[in-house]
């Protein structure tokens, strides 16, 4: 639990402070992993249904899907703006 909390806060810090979309993505992954760690830790107390572990599996798959789409978006944004600094991307349509 404590490890999970610390990881979540590090992820939050990365998201807010970094100026690079890829680093922000890493922060998001870190926060997701913190949540999954909690699921797994409490899944130990559910032998018959395995609720925690199965849900952790679903969460991992969702994280993978999210990352794939987010990286595609980042590449697209990079191709259009030649930068991946989110502070500099300020127009919705050109």
């Amino acid at each position, binding site marked *: 639990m404590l490890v999970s909390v610390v990881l979540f806060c590090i992820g939050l810090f990365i998201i807010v402070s970094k100026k690079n979309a890829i680093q922000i993505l890493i922060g998001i*992954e870190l926060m997701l992993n913190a949540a999954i760690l909690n699921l797994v*830790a409490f899944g130990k*107390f559910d*032998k018959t249904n395995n609720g925690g572990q199965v849900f952790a*599996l679903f969460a991992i798959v969702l994280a993978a899907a999210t990352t794939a789409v987010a990286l595609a978006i980042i*590449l697209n944004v990079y191709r259009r703006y030649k930068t991946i600094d989110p502070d500099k991307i300020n127009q919705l349509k050109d």
Partner: protein
Amino acid sequence: MSLVQAMFYLMAFVTVGSALVVAAGKNLVRSIFLFFVTLFGLAGLYVLALADFVAVTQIVIYVGGILVLILFAFMLSGKEALATAEQQKTKFISLHNLPAFILAALFLVVMLNVVFKADINNLPWIKTAIATKNVVPVNGTGINDIGVGLMTRYLLPFEVISVLLMIALVGAAHLSRKEPVEA
């Protein structure tokens, strides 16, 4: 201190330490590879939480899939990414990062408070689980249960997530295609 506890503290230290270095590092490549270490530490923690299947899945999907994707995107966005990473010459706790640091620290305090108030070892449902022997045994493996559960009790979420993965793949391919030349 037993061996399991020692392993837990070792894994926790590796995970948190490498995550901190990811947050503090200025070099993007180095932080990506340290994220790799963090993921391995997390997989070790899963094993210690008696979830071996989740640990293997974590290694396969995160280390094999997501990290390679991130590296791929990093290589494709090339010099610009490196330039912005180098440009960020600020210290870990500097004026630029101070609001972010304060936010994260306050959130840490709140979450720690919640964790200590929750009094994990005395939660009623955990007590009933221990009383009814509903705890995953240390010597057995739960993979069999997980497989049966995925095909029976969790069949609907399983199918839904497969469709969602399909949609995400098609969407990602569509997003990253070359723009057609305007005639």
